[in-house]
């Protein structure tokens, strides 16, 4: 199962992922069409700025997701197999329990209605729109093992380099 990973050193804060997310969740699915639409298309991820670093925050689709546990109407559910956390706007009453318990603050609201909006990982796409839009490849859509494997290989090279340097001094 592929997940959206963030390479924390890559984000330049361009907000392209946010724009692409909103466009993907519009009726027109094009920028020039989306900006004129009602309801206003909403983004589901957020480029934040902390300690002089930029990073996109988005739903991690956590195991035993607090938003699912907090939801009193059954609007928020977690797929038994994929563990994807989905939101059903028909069942949402806008009580914001999910927003209150989400540790990442990535559950927003629709502009015109009192209902939540969150990442659905772009069910109509092979690769989520935010990942495709990222010009620096800060967002990566990969299996957890593949992503961790890439990180491991870089780390391994650094460790070996350090070791070799220590040996030659």
């Amino acid at each position: 199962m592929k997940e959206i990973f963030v390479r924390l050193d890559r984000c330049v804060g361009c907000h392209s992922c946010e724009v692409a997310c909103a466009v993907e969740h519009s009726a027109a699915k094009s920028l020039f069409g989306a900006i004129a639409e009602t309801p206003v298309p909403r983004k589901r991820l957020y480029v934040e700025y902390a300690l002089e670093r930029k990073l996109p925050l988005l739903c991690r689709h956590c195991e035993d997701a607090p938003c699912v546990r907090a939801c009193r109407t059954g609007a928020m559910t977690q797929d038994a197999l994929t563990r994807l956390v989905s939101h059903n706007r028909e069942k949402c009453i806008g009580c914001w329990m999910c927003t209150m318990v989400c540790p990442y603050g990535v559950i927003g609201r629709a502009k015109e209605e009192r209902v939540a909006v969150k990442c659905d990982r772009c069910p109509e796409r092979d690769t989520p729109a935010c990942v495709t839009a990222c010009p620096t490849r800060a967002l990566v859509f990969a299996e957890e093992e593949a992503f961790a494997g890439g990180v491991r290989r870089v780390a391994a090279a650094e460790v070996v380099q350090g070791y070799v340097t220590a040996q030659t001094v």
Partner: protein
Amino acid sequence: MNPRTVCPATTEMLKVAEREGIATAWDRYDKQLPQCGFGELGTCCRNCLQGPCRVDPFGEGPTLGVCGATADTIVARNLDRAIAAGTASHSGHAKHLAHTLLKAADGRAPDYPVKDEGKLRAVAARLGIAAEGKTTMELAKAVAECALAEFSEKESPLAWVATTVTKGRVETALKFGVVPTGIDSAISEIMHRTAYGVDADPINLLLGGVKCALADFAGCHMGTDLADILFGTPQPVVSRANLGALKVNAVNVALHGHNPVLSDVIVQVAPELEAEAKAAGASEGLNLVGICCTGNEVLMRHGIPSATHSVSQELAIMTGALDAMVVDYQCLMPSLSTVAECYHTKLITTMPIAKIPGATHLDFHEETARESARAVLRLAIEAFKKRDPKRVNIPSYSHTAIAGFSTEAIVGALSLVNKDDPLKPLLDNIVAGNILGVCLFAGCNNVKVPQDSAFLAIAKELARNNVLLLATGCGAGTFARHGLLTPEATNEYAGPGLKAVLTAVGQAAGLGGPLPLILHMGSCVDNSRAADVAVAVANKLGVDVDKLPVVASAPEATTEKAISIGTWAVAAGLPTHVGVVPPVLGGPTIARVLTQDVKGLFGGWFIVETDPAKAAEQLLAAIRERRKGLGLT
């Protein structure tokens, strides 16, 4: 997926590029996708160091820049700066010609005689410069000085606007306070008013843009006038267009860029070097071809074939048969040097303001123009000796193209129908409905549009509906490469009324057939020629340009120059189509003013439509609306 081009030669060369692993503009475009939404909407402001600021088009994030600028303010400022850049380009080209004319008049540039004295006298008379008692060179000097004076800030309106437009347009410009008094000063004013903390009123900013665009018109018109004086006013000429114009047994030299100041001299000296080219092993000697508007300039005046245009410029090198590409300025992809490195082709830059890493630079001086031109051609002959015959791939495609339709040439052709009143046949046929209206095609190709497809689709539909078609720049290049600048195209695509008119004029001109379906009026500065035709028709009819059934279309626009031309076309009163969405939609007020409200101010407006069929419909509707306004059916 859309094809990258509908040009057969370009299609063939793109396969070569793929096989050879050489990246083109299309490949680089793919790597840019998706492009930044803020940039696409025009809502990114980088005009101060507190930025960059972006306004969220969906209203969730920031709605104001740090300084408080709204999306409309930011969009208007960005649009104005694009207009200023376009103006600087056209008028930089014109200023270069003015300096050349002055040097020629002073005897400092002996390689530039006045080629068209009639045009010199006509321009001088229009500007109110007395010719009596002046030698040709004294008059040339007076015109050159008048031209150079246009660049600084004067106490009076730009002569190249005030004397070239209708009285009604001057009044409209005065009414809205958009009369430019200097070309460089108009550009400078845009930079001032769009700087941090100056003009924040979106409408006032747009009016500033119009003022600068009128200065752009002055630059374009001056560019045309001075080039005609120095190099001759174009008359109809038969040539060819597309990469098939390259010759396997010749030293092929492409002249690329915009200004005829060097390229025309290269054409003049080429016969002197024929023997050297043959001695180097090129049995057919030298073969000059054009790319983009420098290509248009030498096509119009000398019948030099056009190799290709705009987005496909890199592919000329990939034929393996191009020995040198000589460039001046504007629309030169920096990638040319990278592509040239993969072949024997010598890329030669010639202008101090336009160098490309990896290219050979020969500083061009008007004082020694012919010597510079010979040096350029000798570099090409040297390069030819290194050509690898195994890598030569010249596509077999090229079409006959008739060009050279200056305003003077068109009036000349019409005067063969009616000697005393040349415009009468044109007007009579517009009134009678044989000609529904006139459309000027201008602008570039754009990697976002399958190359040439929008030009061809719209032109064929308008021709079918009896619209008289004019073209300049890379638009004219498109039509040349696809065989639409021919009498055969008239027979194939023109509606019955248009066909009859083009045939009558063609017969009177002794062509034994119709005029071409589309009249090639020259380079992008030569949009002034089309404006002259519209002004002449308006004056003859006794109405202003904003009442005429005349429209303009840039279906594949790319450059900032296209934005400045589009803006003066709208200010001239023309419904003006743009087929690529300009970065203005992020400012809702700006988008509405440009496409609707501006009609109430200047009479023209922007039609933004990416679908060629719908664009043709809207252009036809605009023409019909204008006809109705004039009481025509």
